[in-house]
């Protein structure tokens, strides 16, 4: 039997004005197990707390009921008080007689009657409370960042600067991601490479950062603070530690017809290549699909010219296994394939390009050395049509487009239009838009400059058809404000393709047990309050893998994710919330209902041997809750048909005791 103390707070007159606090204390005395009951002006004050501590000692109390304000206000306070008094902090229950009683009921008799019932409910519950101790687990002080674009780089740099080791796993041979392919950035028009490449170098030189490029995550096990990850580093056939990045091999290789993915296949590189001049790591890589030596053993030119002796045709994939305390997903985005929207003739004409291709065409390091030339004939285009929302906000085209707004297209299109008009004032630029969306610092001003200062023709309407004919692109479109159909003979058409999460995200989410929305964007733990955390503890989100984002947003989210990681890694151990689910193995059927509803993947199944009454043993599948991962929502407790699953702090019998007390 518990020895329960009841403490009724007046809260000045906040409670005492409509609740007869003395009567409540007196009524509580009559409840079974209550050995002490009193009231006081301010229970939360130092004096009030001391009074509780003294009472615990004097009356050997094992459970406390505080009738006071909302537990959301002072539950933590009174738990500490209990700990100071030497009893388990989870032996405290609060009866909310202020917010949910004295403040909402006008007359004393009503308020008093209800306060007594609430006190009795709390007493009934505390009878069944058991001491709870938060589980502790060790934290591995190393973070993994998956994806080496600007999001991953920023997150890794911030974590590394706080003194924790970080690994970046990047699937391409170099870090840099999409931003490395961009020309200028909005709304400042500074060059992307100028601001990105120093960060890439920082990452490479930071002793806390290890870049594992040309690699992918293969397996993830464990839980927050204790992840175990298997990473496959693909063979690049060049010894990374030896290659100096001189680039001689990339000039001598006889195989010249390898599409250059970095330039979106608008030109070619050799079978051995360095993706771009500022690549990090600046190490050559051999494309085994094209290399003559690897395909039929005849060549070996690169090995001959390499003075460092870095070429290794026998190199194999390497498996790296490592423990991490936290994992950040920064897998980024890709433009969708626009071939399905062939009313814009993307597959029919080289002069219909995507915006990302346009970035390469205007980039000084791109296939045209920054001169804006038509891909078909290398001529300078005089009329350019930009089409917005290609595949974005597209609800009807199942599998083709995306229902959401891709967010970045309005701004980069304004940038492109402006850059064209700036460099080539003789070029007419049309932008067809549905809405121009520019919520961001200096964004609308930027867009207006494109219209007002640069003379870009913004037309409210949509292109319906692009017809390549006689070297021109005949664009048929609507101009809704003028109520007419336009026919423009364009030289170049640029499509603002919708963006979608990288294809690697979905299998990664499965490995991480992180949830995803229907568009394959990672879901955040809370859309407003926990935007950089996945619902799965220890998994954090950085950049466009969580939703479309521009660079400033990506970087802020990347740093926010880093802050969360640092907060986690700064702890030696993790104290969990002890109010977690617990399964009674003897009753568990192993049916998986609980695991099906668990939003955190906290439940796994083990085959356990049970000794039967007849001395035989029986192996059964039973649920096992990882207390470090469980967040204590209780969904599993109701899904469980046998009632094997229960929730500490809110046990079935505790809640039913409250029900009984209220309905008495």
């Amino acid at each position: 039997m518990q020895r329960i103390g009841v403490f009724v707070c007046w809260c000045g007159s906040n409670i005492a004005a409509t609740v007869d606090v003395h009567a409540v204390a007196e009524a509580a005395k009559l409840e079974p197990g209550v050995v002490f009951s009193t009231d006081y002006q301010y229970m939360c004050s130092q004096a009030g707390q001391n009074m509780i501590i003294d009472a615990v000692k004097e009356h050997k109390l094992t459970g406390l009921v505080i009738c006071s304000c909302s537990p959301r206000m002072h539950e933590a306070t009174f738990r500490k008080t209990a700990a100071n008094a030497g009893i388990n902090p989870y032996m405290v229950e609060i009866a909310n007689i202020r917010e949910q009683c004295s403040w909402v009921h006008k007359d004393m008799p009503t308020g008093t009657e209800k306060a007594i019932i609430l006190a009795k409910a709390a007493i009934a519950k505390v009878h069944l409370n058991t001491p709870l101790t938060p589980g502790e687990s060790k934290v591995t002080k190393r973070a993994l960042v998956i994806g080496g674009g600007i999001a991953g780089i920023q997150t890794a740099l911030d974590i590394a600067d706080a003194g924790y080791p970080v690994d970046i796993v990047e699937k391409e041979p170099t870090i840099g991601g999409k931003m490395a392919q961009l020309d200028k950035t909005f709304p400042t028009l500074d060059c992307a490479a100028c601001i990105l490449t120093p960060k890439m170098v920082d990452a490479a030189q930071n002793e806390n950062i290890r870049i594992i490029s040309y690699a992918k995550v293969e397996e993830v096990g464990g839980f927050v603070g204790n992840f175990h990850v298997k990473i496959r580093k693909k063979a690049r056939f060049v010894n990374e530690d030896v290659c100096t990045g001189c680039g001689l091999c990339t000039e001598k290789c006889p195989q010249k017809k390898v599409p250059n993915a970095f330039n979106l296949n608008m030109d070619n590189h050799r079978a051995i290549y360095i993706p771009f001049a500022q690549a990090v790591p600046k190490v050559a890589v051999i494309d085994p699909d094209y290399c003559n030596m690897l395909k039929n053993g005849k060549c070996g030119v690169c090995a001959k010219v390499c003075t460092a002796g870095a070429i290794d045709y026998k190199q194999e994939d390497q498996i790296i296994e490592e423990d991490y305390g936290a994992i950040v997903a920064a897998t980024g985005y890709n433009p969708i394939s626009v071939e399905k929207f062939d009313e814009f003739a993307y597959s029919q004409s080289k002069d219909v390009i995507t915006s990302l291709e346009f970035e390469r065409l205007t980039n000084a390091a791109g296939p045209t050395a920054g001169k804006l030339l038509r891909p078909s004939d290398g001529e300078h285009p005089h009329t350019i049509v930009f089409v917005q929302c290609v595949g974005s906000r597209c609800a009807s085209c199942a599998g083709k487009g995306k229902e959401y707004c891709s967010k970045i297209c309005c701004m980069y299109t304004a940038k492109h239009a402006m850059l064209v008009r700036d460099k080539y004032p003789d070029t007419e630029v049309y932008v067809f838009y549905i809405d121009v969306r520019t919520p961001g610092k200096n964004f609308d001003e930027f867009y207006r400059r494109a219209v007002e200062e640069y003379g870009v023709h913004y037309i409210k309407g949509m292109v319906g058809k692009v017809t390549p004919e006689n070297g021109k692109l005949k664009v048929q479109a609507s101009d809704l404000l003028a109520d007419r159909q336009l026919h423009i003979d364009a030289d170049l058409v640029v499509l603002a393709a919708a963006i979608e999460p990288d294809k690697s995200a979905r299998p990664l989410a499965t490995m991480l047990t992180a949830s995803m929305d229907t568009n394959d964007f990672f879901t955040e733990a809370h859309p407003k309050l926990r935007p950089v955390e996945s619902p799965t503890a220890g998994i954090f989100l950085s950049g466009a893998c969580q939703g479309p984002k521009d660079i400033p947003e990506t970087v802020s989210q990347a740093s926010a994710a880093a802050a969360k990681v640092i907060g986690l890694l700064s702890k030696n151990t993790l104290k969990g919330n002890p109010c977690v689910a617990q399964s009674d193995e003897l009753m568990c059927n192993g049916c998986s209902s609980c695991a099906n509803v668990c939003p955190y993947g906290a439940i796994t199944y083990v085959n356990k041997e049970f000794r039967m009454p007849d001395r035989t043993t029986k192996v059964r599948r039973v649920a096992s809750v990882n207390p470090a991962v469980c967040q204590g929502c209780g969904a599993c407790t109701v899904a469980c048909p046998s009632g094997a699953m229960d929730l500490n702090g809110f046990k079935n019998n505790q809640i039913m005791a409250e029900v009984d007390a209220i309905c008495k």
Partner: protein
Amino acid sequence: MKFSYFPGCTLKTKAKQLDVYARKCAEVLGITLEEIPAWQCCGGVFNASRDEIASKLSAVRALSAARDAGQPLVSVCSACHNVIKQTNAAMQDDGEFASHVNHYLTQPGQGQAEPYYGETEVYHYLELLRDVVGFDKVKAAVKHPLTGKKIGAYYGCLLLRPSGVMAMDDPENPQILEDFIRAIGGEPVIYAMRNECCGGYMTLEDKALAAKKSTAVLDNASVNGADLLVTACPLCKYNLDKNGKNDLPVVYFTELLAEALGIKE
């Protein structure tokens, strides 16, 4: 394999070549076409209005005749195919429409016993070539390949749209006619207007519009290098031939097929 065949009015009159060659080629390729007895005009155009029932009855009759024969239905004319396929989809998906139609058709004297709910599989002749015969087999059967012929495929509207229902090919970047052209040894010419409207339905109402639209199609095809257009639609053919201000020849795809298979008289 046996199919219920719906030729349609135009193929019995003005577009006899389309019909005759379709039958002959099928024979050569091992397909048996069984003409649906006492078929009636498909209605010419599928009225998108859900409450328009009368003009869709004959299509339902043809479909249920095929169902009763236990055979898929095949048609050659794009317009017939479009009407029949859309009607079939409406009978499957639009319960209210289907119950109206069935209520009427199962009345005594209407000659239909069982209500119809879109059970019949509907093929266009081209789909038959692609999915049943296989273009590889077509290619193997070719005796006189049309080598060197630059042929533009003209899809028009009816074969492809609405794509959700017609489901023949990608509505914006179709391949089926191009693959057909390759199979018979020709060289397909891709041009953007191949799936744009020729204005055929306006040929009575507004000749000028029909002329404008068909000329645009023909011009775009010839500028992109086509020597010849193929089509599956008699109305398109008529309109392109008659109203288009461009001499680019337009032929039915079955005629070219017959030529390639060496059975053209």
